[in-house]
């Protein structure tokens, strides 16, 4: 027996569990249609990160002459890019996912949060490919990995939760204020430069007072990029401010469900 009134929680955990197969189906659909009708198909999943890694390491390493210890610039960049690439994909595809699926949302019930989550799951493919490319580069350059690597799964988990959190928040807010659709790409682009991807965070924060440095790490991507490098390359000690980043990341994830829940009820009415 199911009671529905104005205070009924739209999506319960039980509901979400009952619809787990739908999450799988949506994910499978998104995978199927992602490279539909492209000639190169799945190859694109490799071409895109190769190009961005090359461009970034070229710009920061060769043109700007940013000095980064003995690690090859390209490995350094590939490491830093892990967090940002996934974040970039998820904010874009999850962020717009509810609006894209509006026809379905107006016609049938299912826990709406499944939609942005399914997009974030698809992004894991790219994250995996990026990781794979990094391994190839490390083997090629004979780069030793750090014993900190055992922390890599945890850091990746934080990265995934943060990105999903932002994706969920954006997907909900976009339904109410479509203005965000135009703002978000700029912010994400900007974050590419505000995040120590191809340069060390020290490069920015060394000459600044401590409080500015703390603000810098409020951007979870900054801490995550540093943490990724620390766990894989282990070249420097971990800046303790990284924990601010990790905290903000987990907080974002927790808040995202609350925010989504609040807007979810009206979704079919405002779309």
């Amino acid at each position, binding site marked *: 027996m199911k009671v529905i009134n*104005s205070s009924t929680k739209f999506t319960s955990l039980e509901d979400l569990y009952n619809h787990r197969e739908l999450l799988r189906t949506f994910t499978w659909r998104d995978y199927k249609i992602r490279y539909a009708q492209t000639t190169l198909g799945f190859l694109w999943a490799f071409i895109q990160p190769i190009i961005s890694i090359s461009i970034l390491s070229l710009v920061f390493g060769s043109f700007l002459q940013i000095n980064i210890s003995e690690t090859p610039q390209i490995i350094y960049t590939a490491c830093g890019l892990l967090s940002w690439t996934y974040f970039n994909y998820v904010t874009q595809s999850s962020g717009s996912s509810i609006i894209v699926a509006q026809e379905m949302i107006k016609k049938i019930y299912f826990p709406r949060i499944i939609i942005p989550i399914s997009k974030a799951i698809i992004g894991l493919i790219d994250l995996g490919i990026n990781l794979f490319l990094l391994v190839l580069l490390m083997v090629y350059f004979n780069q030793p990995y750090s014993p900190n690597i055992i922390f890599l799964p945890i850091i990746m988990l934080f990265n995934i939760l943060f990105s999903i959190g932002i994706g969920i928040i954006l997907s909900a807010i976009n339904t109410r204020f479509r203005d965000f659709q135009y703002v978000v790409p700029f912010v994400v682009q900007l974050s590419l430069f505000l995040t120590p991807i191809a340069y060390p965070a020290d490069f920015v924060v060394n000459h600044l007072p401590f409080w500015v440095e703390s603000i810098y790490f409020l951007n979870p991507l900054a801490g995550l990029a540093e943490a990724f490098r620390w766990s894989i390359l282990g070249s420097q000690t971990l800046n303790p401010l990284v924990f601010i980043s990790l905290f903000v990341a987990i907080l974002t994830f927790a808040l995202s469900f609350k925010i989504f829940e609040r807007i979810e009820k009206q979704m079919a009415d405002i779309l």
Partner: protein
Amino acid sequence: MIDFAIKIENVTKTYALNSASHSASLRQFAQSFLKTKKPERFNALLDVNCTIYQGESVAIIGINGAGKSTLLKLLSRITPPTDGQIILNGRVSSLLEIGTGFHPELTGKENIFLNGSVLGMSKTEIQSKMESILKFAGISRHINQPIKHYSSGMEVRLAFAVAAHLEPDILMIDEVLAVGDIEFQEKCISKMKELASKGKTLVFISHNRALSSRLCKRGLVLEKGQLVYDGEIEDSLDFYQEQVMKSAPMTERILSSQRHLGNRKFNFSKIWLENKEGNRKFDVKSGDHLSICVEVDSLEKVEANVACRIYNNSKTRITSLTSSYFKQKIEVGASTIISWHIPKLALTEGKYRLELAAYEDFNGQVLIDEVTSALWISVEESAYHGHEVSSSPGKNMVYFDFNVSSKNS
């Protein structure tokens, strides 16, 4: 024991009219925030109470904007009520449209899985029904092609095939049967009847009177968000019919946007009905005096053989009111009004279509103008012979003036 399937208690659904809180721009939101003016509100549903029992088939009836679709959206959990509560007892499936979630790039088979799981079927359930779904749709040859290459008819069949294999306790359907060809529609209707006979609960929205009375036993009539009638399907449909007549009293119908045929020496431009006194009338009853009036615009004076033909709902011609029966031609000039006078309407209850035609000759060879669907009239039952009696058994098509007598031989 719980014997109800759906219980609707004091349900109200309010929408804000042209308010910023429901619009999509930050600017409007800021404006409304500063003004602190309460947005205008509108009740799509107002204090609706109703219990639908297990195994019932119920039609929700009402004119557009009465709240039918809103009610169905609430029942299918797409949007929550503003006030009141709904209790659902059993597994619910709702079909507000068919083929929800279909993706053009995916193949027919893949879309069956996608649509099936959106509708709440499990993967194993879909797999076990796959053959039956394909058979129902009758498109097995194309099943591994992306559905963007399907004709729209094929897509509809596929969508319906999936929907027909749902096995919910409560099935809610919005006007989706309107699509598809007749043969396929029949297939779907019999599928729905099968569900009903299995004791499943059916909630159904349709503007199609015949379909509603075939499928449902009970009707709920909504008007401006309120439940105004709840009863036997035929009574509900009658109540609704009356509502429609009252809400939109049509004084005349302009024919310019209709399809005209013929050499167009003149055009039928307007049609309306009049009573014996020459006043416009809206409700037509058996046994009444009825005048069918048509305005004609002609540049030159033309003599024409004019006809008004009456068809019933199933496209059978009941009769024809043709001036050639009297070997009479009607003179038509600039803004002429042609009237057909029927002293005692012999039609029984039902919907009838009026067709207009004008010819230059009596044999119907040279067509001047023809409008096949000039006006639909809805005839109400009344005491044709002066006394209110049921004509049972069976239903009459027409009335005759007659008398009955006896004498000793």
